[in-house]
């Protein structure tokens, strides 16, 4: 009887998990389906079976050079992630292993910067970029994306580092390890799942960032978010083309997420259950 109940619970739980997963994934799935429709089909109403036309992809490719935008997305997301980790690892180490009475306040202050609407600082940031010649530059946008995601990176790393017993680091110090060796050879290997998932999440966040990447670029540094934005039309049907552009833009990050899902889940659930 108990076995039957367990099996029943398992079936219900599995079904519930599938339903939730499908609900979450459905908008992406429908975007992909719409990309294989004609413009007339796309606006006609809800339909799960497309005609399978590739005309939207052909038009998107003919209209804009996808590869240039893709390359900028890769450079900006990877570059900003590496830069963020370089800053965040020492910061999180310091806060996790040498906390002061202000550490919690600093962490909260860092997080509070994420609560401000980005548009509130658009003009000051735009003027700084203008005066420093960073408008439409990959360097400027890499720094910007790093700064935007830094609070999340620090918070995630801090959470992972807190799970590592301080005694191990003390033992390394007793053995004469320098601070640098302690971070590189003791802390980092133990925190690899956490660092990896932080890295992956940051790449995804930077890849999808659409406010600053559209507003601080024109042609040289414009990533895939600008590519998608260019397909919305005030006068004329564009849903199929927009869906094709979106599918092309999210495909790389979806594929990356699929292959690294084990690492991502392991990192995100690191220390969740002791």
């Amino acid at each position, binding site marked *: 009887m108990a076995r039957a109940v367990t099996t029943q619970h398992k079936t219900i739980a599995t079904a519930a998990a599938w339903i939730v997963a499908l609900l979450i994934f459905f908008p992406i799935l429908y975007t992909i389906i719409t990309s294989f429709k004609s*413009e*007339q089909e796309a*606006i*006609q109403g809800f339909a799960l079976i497309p005609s399978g036309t590739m005309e939207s992809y052909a038009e998107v490719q003919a*209209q*804009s050079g996808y590869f240039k935008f893709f390359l900028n997305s890769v450079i900006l997301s990877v570059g900003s992630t590496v830069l963020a980790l370089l800053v965040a690892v020492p910061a999180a180490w310091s806060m996790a292993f040498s906390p002061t009475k202000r550490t919690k306040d600093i962490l909260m202050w860092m997080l509070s910067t994420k609560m401000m609407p980005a548009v509130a600082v*658009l*003009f000051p940031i*735009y*003027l700084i970029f*203008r005066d420093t010649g960073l*408008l*439409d530059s990959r360097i400027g946008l890499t720094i910007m994306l790093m700064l935007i995601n830094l609070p999340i990176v620090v918070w995630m790393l801090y959470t992972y580092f807190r799970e590592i017993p301080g005694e191990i680091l003390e033992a390394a110090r007793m053995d004469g390890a320098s601070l640098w060796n302690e971070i590189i050879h003791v802390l980092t290997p133990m925190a690899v799942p956490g660092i990896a998932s932080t890295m992956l999440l940051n790449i995804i966040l930077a890849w999808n960032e659409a406010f600053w990447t*559209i*507003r601080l670029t*024109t*042609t040289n540094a*414009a990533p895939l978010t*600008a590519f998608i*934005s*260019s*397909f*919305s*039309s*005030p*006068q*004329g*049907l*564009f849903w199929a083309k927009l869906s094709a552009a979106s599918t092309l833009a999210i495909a790389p990050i979806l594929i990356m997420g699929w292959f690294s899902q084990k690492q991502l889940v392991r990192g995100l659930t690191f220390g969740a259950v002791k």
Partner: protein
Amino acid sequence: MKLRTLTLGLLSASALAFAAHAESITIATVNNGDMVRMQKLTDDFTKANPDIQLNWVTLEENVLRERVTTDIATKGGQYDVMTIGTYEVPIWAKQSWLLPLDKLGDDYDVKDIIPAIAGGLSVDGKLYAAPFYGESSFVMYRKDLMEKAGLKMPDAPTWDFIKQAADKMTDRANGVNGVCLRGKAGWGENMAFLTAMSNSFGARWFDENWKPQFDQPEWKNTLQFYVDLMKADGPEGASSNGFNENLALFQQGKCGMWIDATVAASFVSDPKASQVADKVGYALAPDNGLGKRGNWLWAWSLAIPAGTQKADAAEKFVSWATSKHYAELVASKEGWANVPPGTRSSLYANAEYQKAAPFAKMTLDSINAADPTHPTVKPVPYVGVQFVAIPEFQGLGTTVGQLFSAALAGQSSVDDALKQAQDAATAAMTEGGYIK
């Protein structure tokens, strides 16, 4: 001697290489069919101007508006040519944010630009933007359904006729709505339509002293007529419909009439996209016999920001893209029907264009029927047919648009919507220093 010759040669080569280095200009634009076509045809320009390289930035309309406004207000210098509308031109020109276009070339023929369009793009007699394509609004209707209803659409219908025809054409059982009109909130969406419509009802946004006029009977008549008409004969969920949604409905045969931009005529008469392509007739926007019709005037135009370092190259491009030569180029490559409409009188005198575009005459008549400098029956202190050319209008227009969209959706009454619109407009005008 040999060394000196070599040095001189190298210096000359460097100078030549520097001179030959292409100057690149950045053009910000929207993703409209005509704009996309222009990008494909730019070889013609670069062949004639090998020293000018073109970079395109295509953005969604609202993002483009925000981006170019940020850039021009901060003198960011990111763009050398901007695609802007008739709303921005008078405001930006007065702020000295745009360069006057006075070097468009001897063969440009400025006088050929349709006077109503040129008027909307000029300040103090100087042209600050060159129109790429222009539009008004008119009635597109199904000739077969009109005939079935036993009616004949006049060239210049009244609102009463539109109501009568819509009632007769509505056939909910077969999915036919008598009339499709904009309902989606936004200063460029439902408020473009409703502001133009209100002009024909004798309403105005502000009196001569900038006092808001939503508490006047003319606005009540406008909004009540619109809500009643749409409730009786409009499509379901009309408060979410903008240009593109109504275009799809009309192309699928679900609208008896659609009053919207003249540029839509090429879409609804295209047999590849429209199921009713051979059944569409055109008429002027309706009136109420007060001397003003409910049609608007708009032109997507190319302007040069004052902050550009490449004004000469930018003006060369603007001149090319808005010239008679460009119209002929499009005609030779893609046919006369695809020439950007609504900018030049000569296009409408062209027999081949008239043949290719059966809506040509009605488009020109509609454009000529709009007067942005005298848009209303009673006098007003502002310019603009379907907008008020003041910086506050974008925000205020969208707020009022949301209130009117809610009235259409049945979330509030017409009286409540108008009262709230009056309050919002009074607050905005007081804050802006127009009234005390």
